[in-house]
């Protein structure tokens, strides 16, 4: 377990925890970007170069800005007066802890059965990914393309500012 | 519809290219032709100020002694007219003879706060005695923010010759009108003198007004 892996994992988890626990919403969004960056580094550490750069481009480049814009548009950067956590926060925490316990138990139990030993680092070239994308995965690619267009149009229509309804 | 360049109008970016060629000509020209490089290196080289430049007012005086020859008679019209109220005049108690010889008041204190003055030249326009004109001197920076920028009578007074130097044509017109005025006054005094002489034949003559 190399030191680098621990470093990146610590960065990601710290970012994730901060994104969840901080009071100021904008700080949460920035901590979220730290978590995204940590994850991208983890992907690169796992030799998934294309996925790592795609993660940076899509998440840090677009989703983080989207979250921040949404925070500003809904004026939630001012901390609310009656507390930041919902009333039944204890239940939520208990459920999350339970889920983690189950997952951790499952991982540790099956630690033996997992493929041991460091597999040879697969030299994945962008050419292979391109061929795979347009070869075996051409159907999912078209579906995701359709989905992205639908999501884009849908998001615009949902968030559009209706002039007439607001005046009523 | 579009009036002038209908056909040329549809080429997108055509205006941008024209603009770019213009600036390129300007850029290349500035190394070559003088008229494309109009700026000079200020302290070392200076561009002669244009005739009608005006910065801050100054008081004109005739002859050598600035106090005696001062044209200003402290009528305080300019003080009232000045929009930012930057002129302060204190009138004298006694009188002194002016250029024509007529005893006039004179300002014991004539301050202009040049940090407030906006060079609008209204004082020059309203002054009936051509006593205040606009100077072209602009290097007036001082360390002292308040006192240094409040010019007193003595610093404001400059000779008529200096006035001729900076505003030649205007000074010439002013002198011509003053001379005409003086000639009219002399003619009037001589006419009065003759009339007095004629009446004097019946009644003893009054003492002549102060001459030069």
């Amino acid at each position, binding site marked *: 377990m190399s030191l680098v892996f621990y470093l990146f994992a610590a960065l990601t988890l710290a970012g994730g925890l901060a994104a969840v626990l901080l009071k*100021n919403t*904008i*700080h949460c969004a*920035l901590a979220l*970007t730290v978590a995204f960056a940590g994850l991208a580094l983890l992907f690169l550490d796992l030799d998934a*170069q*294309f996925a790592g*750069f*795609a993660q*940076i*481009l899509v998440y*840090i*480049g*677009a989703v*983080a*800005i989207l979250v*921040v*814009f949404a925070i*500003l548009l809904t004026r939630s*950067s001012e901390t609310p007066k009656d507390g930041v956590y919902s009333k039944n926060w204890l239940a939520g925490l208990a459920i999350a802890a339970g889920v983690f316990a189950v997952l951790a138990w499952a991982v540790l139990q099956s630690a033996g059965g997992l493929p041991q030993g460091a597999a040879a680092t697969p030299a994945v*070239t*962008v*050419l292979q990914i391109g061929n795979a994308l347009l070869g075996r995965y051409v159907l999912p690619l078209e579906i995701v393309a359709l989905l992205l267009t639908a999501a884009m149009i849908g998001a615009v229509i949902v968030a559009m500012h209706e002039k007439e309804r607001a005046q009523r | 519809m*579009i009036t002038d360049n209908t056909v040329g*109008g*549809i*080429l*997108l970016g055509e*205006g*941008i290219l024209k*603009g*770019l060629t*213009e*600036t*390129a000509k*300007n*850029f290349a020209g*500035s*190394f070559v032709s003088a008229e*494309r*490089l*109009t*700026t000079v*290196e200020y302290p070392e080289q200076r561009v002669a100020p244009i005739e009608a430049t005006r910065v801050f007012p100054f008081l004109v005086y005739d002859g050598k002694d600035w106090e005696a020859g001062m044209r200003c008679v402290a009528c305080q019209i300019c003080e009232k007219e000045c929009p930012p109220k930057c002129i302060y005049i204190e009138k004298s108690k006694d009188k002194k003879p002016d250029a024509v010889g007529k005893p006039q008041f004179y300002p014991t204190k004539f301050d202009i706060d040049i940090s407030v003055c906006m060079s609008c030249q209204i004082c020059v326009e309203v002054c009936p005695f051509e006593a205040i004109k606009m100077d072209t001197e602009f290097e007036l920076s001082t360390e002292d923010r308040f006192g240094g920028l409040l010019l007193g009578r003595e610093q404001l007074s400059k000779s008529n010759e200096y006035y001729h130097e900076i505003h030649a044509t205007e000074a010439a017109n002013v002198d011509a009108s003053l001379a005409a005025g003086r000639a009219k006054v002399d003619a009037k005094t001589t006419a009065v003198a003759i009339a007095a002489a004629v009446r004097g034949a019946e009644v003893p003559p009054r003492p002549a007004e102060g001459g030069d």
Partner: protein
Amino acid sequence: MVERMDQVFVLFAHWLVGFLPAGWQPVAAVLLSVVVIICLFPALFALTTVLERKGLGRIQNRIGPNRTGPFGILQPVADGIKSLTKEDIVPLSADAVVHFLAPLVLVVTVFMGFAVLPMGRGMVLADIDAGLLFFFAMGASTELSVFMAGWSSRNKYSLLGAMRAVAQMISYEVPLLMSSVAVVMITGSLSLSRIVEAQNHYTWGLPHWYIFTPWGLAGFVMYAIAATAETNRSPFDLPEGESELVAGYHTEYSGFKFALFFLGEYLAMFSISGLGTTLFLGGWSAPFSFLGWVPSWIWFFSKLMLSICVFIWLRGTLPRLRQDQLMNFAWKFVLPMTLLNLMVAALWRFLGDGWERWVICSAILLLAYLAMGWLGMRQGHIGPRRYRYAD
């Protein structure tokens, strides 16, 4: 001898790294080139500030700085000292941590963009297989630092400037990517050194640069427009519109942090024009075959400085665009043209060699250009402004 001149830096690096024990050599080699980049480009930035001020001056019939040192060469030193000694004021209500981090994030991400640019034959810091994607990933994360700067200064003007800047950078990032995808499609690889090698051939002495192909020229024009907008320069410098937004998102910054933002903006300009030369102007390949003896890195840096001069030239000429014109232009003109350019590039690739592909591709692009111009002019979006006096 020629070969040595071309590879002088690579050989020097090997020689220098040779002193270290074998284990440390790869790390030292990378560190050495990182140090070179971190010293070289700020020096280029200093040179460009003088170039810009003198160039703008000459365009506006004045001389430009010539007091500090001969021909004003020491002006950047003066600016540097001034920005270092100026007091660094942080507004009381500002969010200190985010306010402090914003310039750092900007400069770091922009510097990381230089890692993949091939600056000469075999002179690339990290020859990543997905180099272009890495470059755009770094380019995309500069927007976040702009937003952090704008929001953390808690000042209406800077927030407005940040919003405008982020909106502009996002809407011009799409055409930027699209125009470079055309190049990737023709070369068949995302790695920048492969792209430069693909352009490094000559027929009758003329190079195979992509700008000399119809889709390449259109792509380069779109790329240049998007690059100018991406770095908030010249006609698109709305976020720092002095007249209305004081200084946009870096209003509340002073002293060294402001200089960092300044550096970040110029470095973004270098890296975007560096990528432009790599994609369309044949990176480090010589313009003519008989000029092959000149070292390759000279070509890269001369093309880089040439595009910087074009940036300055644009800044001296064009007035600033309004925000809606800017957005309108991006989504209604630049993006459709880049999409069409993508299709034309595909057509170019599958029409095979021969003169007909030249004719067809240029015909399509010219037609689209005229149609877009005619359409734009008729609806009055783009053409000269028409005034109607109130009758």
